[in-house]
């Protein structure tokens, strides 16, 4: 079969990226290779590990289980949009302070899922956090520090909201 390519526009982290893709290219691969967003980690490519999590219109999705052509017309958020090295997002800051990461492979997926959770539920219970993050595998931390980090992030965001008001 001849190689069909299509030009699409992806709205990633607040700006539009024109990319030319084959329909079979996974969103995870296009974000990494064509958009240079290497925070999108690829672990399993069958939906199990959650490392490739990105936000699609604010909700977490597995970018390894979507074709890039399907993401046209939606708003995508990757970990690169959250903060910078000098100015971390409260969730990132909390992961740092609570030692919510070791090797960092799972971290972009964890941080994005946690961010989306806190947007939906600013004060989640520990049980909700555990259930929500059950879809993201971590081989290093044993999860406890990640749960602590999300609880801390909820506090930080609450303080930030008060301080900013």
């Amino acid at each position, binding site marked *: *079969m001849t*190689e*069909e390519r*299509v030009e699409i526009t992806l709205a990633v982290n607040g700006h539009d990226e024109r990319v030319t893709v*084959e*329909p*079979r*290219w*996974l969103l995870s*691969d296009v974000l990494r290779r064509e958009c240079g967003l290497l925070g999108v980690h690829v672990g399993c*490519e*069958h*939906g199990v590990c*959650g490392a490739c*999590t990105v936000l*699609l219109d604010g*909700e*977490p*999705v*597995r970018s*390894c*289980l*979507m*074709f890039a*052509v*399907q993401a046209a017309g939606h708003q995508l958020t990757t970990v690169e949009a959250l903060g910078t090295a000098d100015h971390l997002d409260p969730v990132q800051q909390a992961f740092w302070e609570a030692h919510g990461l070791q090797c960092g492979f799972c971290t972009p997926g964890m941080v994005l*899922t946690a961010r*989306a*959770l806190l947007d939906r539920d600013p004060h989640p219970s520990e049980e909700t956090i*555990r*259930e*929500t993050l*059950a*879809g*993201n595998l971590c081989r290093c931390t044993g999860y406890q520090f990640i749960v602590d980090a999300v609880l801390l992030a909820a506090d930080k965001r609450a303080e930030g909201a008060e301080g900013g008001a």
Partner: protein
Amino acid sequence: MKPVRFKYQAPATVAEAVQQLAEAGIDGKALAGGQSLVPMMNFRLARPAVLVDLNGVAELSGITVDGDHVELGALTRHQTIADSERLQHALPLLARTAGLIGHWGIRTRGTVGGSVVHADPSAEWPAVLTALSAELELVGPQGAHRVPAGEFVLGPLTTAIGMDEILTRIHIPRVPTARTAIEEVARRPGDFALAGAVVVASTEDTRWTFFGLGGPPETVRLSADDARDEASLKRQLTDRVAALEVTGDMHGGAEWRRQVAVVVALRAWRQVAA
């Protein structure tokens, strides 16, 4: 791994989608949430030459509730169902079921229709829709027809759908007097169930529909008299489950799954009996 090349089609209507699937014949496949199909394509266990993406077909999404029935568009996502306040009132079993499926990042994409057509023996939806006597509306080149959910799944990953047909809507009767519950055992929240049971109790009888036993959903019915006290109920359920065909796998043997099936059946029953 990566999928093989395919021709990508993005129809806007059911009629277009049906036509594209009919033209593609055996090489075509519909794409809904992609949460079962895309893993299979990534590992090249599925190699469709033509992929008909249903995500742009607006008429396939949505939840309708009226007096005596609920209608789900096939493309309605698990998370939309879990979050639906209307369903939490009208038929709470549906919202509860959707919340049991996979993880958040799976539920935001995966669809009720995709789950039924995929027909994984451990999937919740085929059992729940069977238990609720739902009807599935299929549309093909010859038009639309309805199939009872209980007759749709023929075996593991095998259903009565034609290759040029699309599941469009799911019709679920509401029986306000019936009490319902679902219980399952899985290793972690979101993992596929090792065994699960849906219970529907009415004034005449109580029915348990099991999933996770290796084949299509299986229903066991006991009269209201049979289901009076827990000890005799447990004996009867054990006998009935012993007669079901159960397949074990590396996650749990057949005998063990039978025992878990009785445990979840009783847990579900306690909720409706309370």
